[in-house]
């Protein structure tokens, strides 16, 4: 297929999106990530029954927290697709990258850069 998607994305593999916890998402932002998206199987197709549904709720929780602390809840999003949907994976990657570019960098980075200087 040799599809292209933005090279700014780092993929972190998990056995199931049900493994992703709120703290994993928050830590990514704390370390300076500009956005995080979780890509799970289609709803109803989870090998472990409800892993992707749990992930969706955790993404929602992370969104609420990020809004409350002023980082921006729109920087985190949940996507669902099947393992056969390579083109859609690439589309989502582009969609998320465009969205994050529009929002600009993670505001926490300014503080980190100032501390480092």
């Amino acid at each position, binding site marked *: 297929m040799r599809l292209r998607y933005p090279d700014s994305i780092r993929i972190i593999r998990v056995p199931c999106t049900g493994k992703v*916890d*709120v*703290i994993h998402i*928050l*830590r990514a*932002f*704390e370390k300076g990530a500009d956005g995080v998206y979780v890509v799970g199987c289609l709803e109803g197709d989870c090998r472990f029954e409800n892993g992707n549904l749990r992930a969706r709720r955790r993404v929602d929780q992370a969104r609420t*927290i*990020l809004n*409350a*602390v*002023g*980082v921006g809840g729109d920087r985190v999003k949940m996507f669902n697709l099947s393992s056969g949907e390579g083109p859609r994976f690439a589309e989502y990657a582009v969609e998320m990258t465009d969205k994050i570019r529009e929002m600009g960098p993670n*505001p*926490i980075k*300014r*503080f*980190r850069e*100032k*501390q480092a200087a």
Partner: protein
Amino acid sequence: MIVAEKKPIEEVIEMVKDFRKILIAGCNECVTVCEAGGKKEVAILASALSMYFMNQGKKMEIDEVTLERQCDHEYLEEIRNTMDQYDAVLSLACGVGVQFMAETYFSTPVYPGVNTCFMGVTEERGVWTERCQGCGECILGRTAGICPISRCAKRLLNGPCGGSTKGKCEISKDLDCAWQLIIDRLKELDRLDEYEQIAPIKDWSTERAGGPRRVVREDVRQ
């Protein structure tokens, strides 16, 4: 267990915003089970606060610890050596733990990170309901194991009031009438005749009405 709810993050920020180094202390008991103040919630709150203060351009050091219990001296003592480093402690234990932390570390400000709600059960994940009010004189033996003190809005002792409709309480159609539950269970146990017995006047002095309570057991006291 004691059921608590996380305080809104905005309220927590307001409490700790003037400090430079704080300790967030979780508790491994009840608040862990009701997902309000265990190790996981401590980590999430620490991360959220840390991001908030970084975003504000303020340097705030946040450490995390989760004690086995905050309602026992022996576990609170575990942090004694490090306590002088902190400007304040944000305790995610129930109100009991927060107070015992404050009593133990008298010169360090302690703030609550959760709202303590009641003694209850996990009906299902994410749903907790009240079962006991700690009235100090348990009558469950007479009421088929269902407590009218904690589950009846009027704390009635001799059957339902006129507001019981189709097994539901008049204050909410989602709330079971405790006396309906009691009668149903007595029927099931074939002990409905017990329902006819008039309950004696309850001694409320063992409840909160008698002021703060104390239990002393000389046989185990050291």
